């Protein structure tokens, strides 16, 4: 089982939906696709939907931190949706939980950003 990445752009918001397993093997692809979209579409905020993500390790933390640094330059926000308890623990250990916002769904996240 590998990682499926779906990206949707709405104004200056990039919505990334992940399904499958995010590890060192699949992290590179996510990094490339997301960072390309951020630059190309002048993205300010990211909504990361983890509803269908079944596994993540520190390689995932690395890519998430990397994208956060990218949008931070434009004073953007990162909102993570549908985080599972084990992934939440990883976010907590690494300090990511303090810098991203958590929401239950994409709709809530869009509302938070003043869209929808």
């Amino acid at each position: 089982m590998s990682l499926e990445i779906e990206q949707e752009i709405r104004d200056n918001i990039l919505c990334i939906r992940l399904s499958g397993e995010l590890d060192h093997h699949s992290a590179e692809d996510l990094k490339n696709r997301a960072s390309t979209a951020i630059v190309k579409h002048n993205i300010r905020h990211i909504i990361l939907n983890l509803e269908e993500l079944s596994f993540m390790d520190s390689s995932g933390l690395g890519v998430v931190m990397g994208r956060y640094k990218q949008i931070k330059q434009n004073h953007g926000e990162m909102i993570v949706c549908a985080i599972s308890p084990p992934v939440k623990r990883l976010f907590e250990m690494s300090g990511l939980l303090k810098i991203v916002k958590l929401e239950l769904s994409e709709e809530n996240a869009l509302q938070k950003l003043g869209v929808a």
Partner: protein
Amino acid sequence: MKNVMNLQFSALSQNESFARVAVAAFIAQLDPTMDELTEIKTVVSEVVTNSIIHGYENDPEGMVYISVSIDDSTVELTIRDEGVGILDVEEARQPLFTTKPDLERSGMGFTIMENFMDEISIISHTGEGTIIRLKKQLTKSNAFCN
């Protein structure tokens, strides 16, 4: 009764998920909780990834060796590589410490291992390789014993 499984494979990133699944399948006979299984899979992923990217610096000629031993409700993992080794183990264990920030590593691997397992031992010699030993007591089977 002690039960042992050994595995050896090329240091290729596509083998990371294989390693997680193989170890999880072997441990399944102890009837672990979902959380325990996730924790062990995450830890296997951390150690194997470290051997591939740090130990062998992505040289696929390298081999990663895993040995899993289960006894009653105790799981013992030994993961070994014959790579470059760790210069300073105490420094490497610090949260957020990484020698490869350019590769977007978060430096959380050892912290995750320490959080998800009960015991960890790191033996590493530069130029020879690294052996990581991890131990975890599963709770559910514990309850059965009492």
